[in-house]
């Protein structure tokens, strides 16, 4: 029998605020243990939490960017459980009135992954387990998170991968999080079940907790899918449980029996007043949202005439898109800038984080100047390309690298002369060409380019060379 994968995601995204959700301690990553703490975030009796306004704004931004409805009235609740990573023995979260609900993220295959809710909550502290005891660092305790919960709408690992990438991209674009999975500022829990293809009943699900890499998520989902199918095929039952994924052995193992929601004994946090979200506030935030990656991609294709593959590469990181947009200001062909960026400039940014930062040796303004020189016919493509390489190497501007004498290309007589020289000094190439090797002409064009220091028009040179050879016959 064939089985279908059914999965849903819960994604925790750490918000890029300066301070924690309920106190004024810094959210900075790292720092000596327990140096970013105060009586509020370590839960001392008699302290009162006060909600960070920016957390609400960022959550609304995230909600709008994922097509959610924003609640008019929201509130904070206590989720009770005893574990040393929570100093108060409860986490302040949201239960039945989350800030955002009913959104979606659209995938490239046209399917919409429905977002059930996005709520705000505090992160827990960090535990280090040693032999015999456990050390607790509350620096991360109280750092604001949003939890983005989807419906069980995923039907393949590829869809899951695309969703996580898309979500990461959106959150970075709107500036609410850096979503660095390796640093834990974005973490995913995945609910997985399987069912016979064609069935519309959900199978028993398991939940894989806390994964911080897209590769691991994909591997863990594949492993868990196969494990569940094997269980069912051999007549056994899938047990509802929480699993941990071990990336070394590529297996999942049980953490603890999943507690029912009501075991958390949620109730309203009486220390925190109601959150009222006026519609004007929502509209203000909507107005301030930047163009989202998907919209940008469409615009690049439809208005700028870029191939879709280029548009995808240029919009994958916000800084690259901004760079591109600056580089094409006042230029004629956006495709030229796209080629320069994807072809030459990308070579100097290899890692994801380098692309994220996009600190390249050539500023968008310098690239823009180079393209304008090219557009105006003052330099030719070959010279532009070699100049760009030099710019990347030295960080100098185009005009510092190109002599006045290099500009304006070659006049026709000089080009004719060079072409004649090319034919005369390459008898073998001429012979090959006459014997039907079309490519042999390239060697002669190369001669012209080299001796004109890139100023000649390669296509024109080729035409002239072929003319000279044919005339000589």
């Amino acid at each position: 029998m064939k089985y279908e994968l059914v999965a849903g995601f819960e994604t925790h995204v750490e918000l890029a605020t300066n301070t924690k959700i309920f106190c004024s301690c810094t959210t900075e990553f790292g720092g000596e243990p327990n140096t970013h703490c105060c009586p509020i975030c370590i839960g001392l009796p008699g302290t009162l939490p006060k909600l960070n306004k920016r957390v609400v704004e960022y959550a609304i931004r995230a909600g709008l960017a994922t097509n959610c409805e924003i609640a008019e009235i929201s509130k904070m609740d206590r989720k009770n459980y005893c574990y040393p990573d929570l100093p108060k023995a409860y986490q302040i979260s949201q239960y039945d009135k989350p800030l955002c609900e009913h959104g979606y993220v659209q995938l490239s295959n046209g399917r919409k992954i429905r977002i059930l809710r996005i709520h705000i909550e505090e992160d827990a502290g960090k535990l280090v387990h040693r032999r015999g005891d456990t050390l607790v660092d509350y620096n991360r305790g109280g750092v604001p998170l949003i939890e983005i919960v989807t419906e069980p709408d995923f039907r393949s690992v590829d869809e899951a991968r695309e969703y996580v990438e898309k979500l990461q991209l959106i959150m970075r674009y709107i500036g609410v999080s850096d979503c660095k999975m390796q640093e834990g500022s974005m973490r995913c829990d995945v609910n997985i079940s399987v069912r016979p293809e064609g069935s519309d009943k959900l199978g028993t699900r398991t939940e894989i907790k806390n994964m911080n890499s897209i590769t691991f998520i994909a591997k863990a989902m594949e492993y868990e899918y196969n494990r569940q199918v094997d269980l069912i095929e051999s007549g056994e039952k899938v047990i509802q449980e929480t699993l941990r994924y071990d990336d070394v052995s590529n297996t999942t193992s049980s953490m603890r029996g999943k507690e029912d929601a009501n075991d958390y004994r949620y109730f309203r946090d009486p220390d925190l007043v109601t959150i009222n979200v006026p519609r004007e506030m929502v509209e203000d935030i909507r107005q301030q949202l930047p163009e989202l990656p998907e919209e940008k991609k469409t615009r690049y294709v439809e208005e700028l005439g870029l191939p879709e593959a280029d548009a995808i590469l240029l919009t994958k990181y916000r800084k690259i898109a901004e760079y591109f947009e600056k580089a094409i200001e006042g230029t004629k062909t956006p495709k030229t800038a796209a080629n320069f960026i994807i072809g030459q400039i990308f070579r100097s940014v290899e890692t994801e984080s380098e692309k994220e930062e996009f600190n390249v040796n050539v500023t968008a303004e310098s690239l823009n100047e180079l393209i304008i020189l090219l557009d105006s016919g003052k330099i030719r493509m070959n010279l532009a390309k070699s100049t760009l390489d030099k710019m990347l190497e030295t960080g100098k501007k185009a005009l510092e690298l190109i002599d006045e004498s290099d500009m304006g290309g070659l006049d026709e007589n000089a080009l004719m002369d060079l072409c004649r020289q090319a034919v005369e000094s390459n008898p073998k190439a001429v012979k090959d060409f006459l014997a039907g090797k079309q490519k042999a002409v390239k060697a002669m064009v190369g001669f012209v380019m080299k001796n004109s220091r890139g100023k000649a028009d390669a296509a024109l040179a080729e035409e002239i060379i072929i003319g000279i050879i044919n005339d000589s016959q």
Partner: protein
Amino acid sequence: MVTKEEIMKIAILSKLSVGDDEIDKLTQDMSEIISFADTINNAADIESDFDNINNLSNAFREDEVLPSLDREQILKNAKDSDEGCFMVKNIMK
């Protein structure tokens, strides 16, 4: 009515150890508390929202960093500490 089983479950979730001799009394007490709270269900229709009875909303704080407390102060009431951390009994079984 609250059952003994429910009391035991709540005790486990709250990490409280409840002696056999205490269960009956706790069950009785809890039942009384709940039936007292149930009185409200018998009250005439009330429009007011009990969820937000003081009618307060939007007490926000600006996102500005203030100095945290010295670690020495933070750890002062800890039963045990090591390497700048709170130290608790190993919770991994």
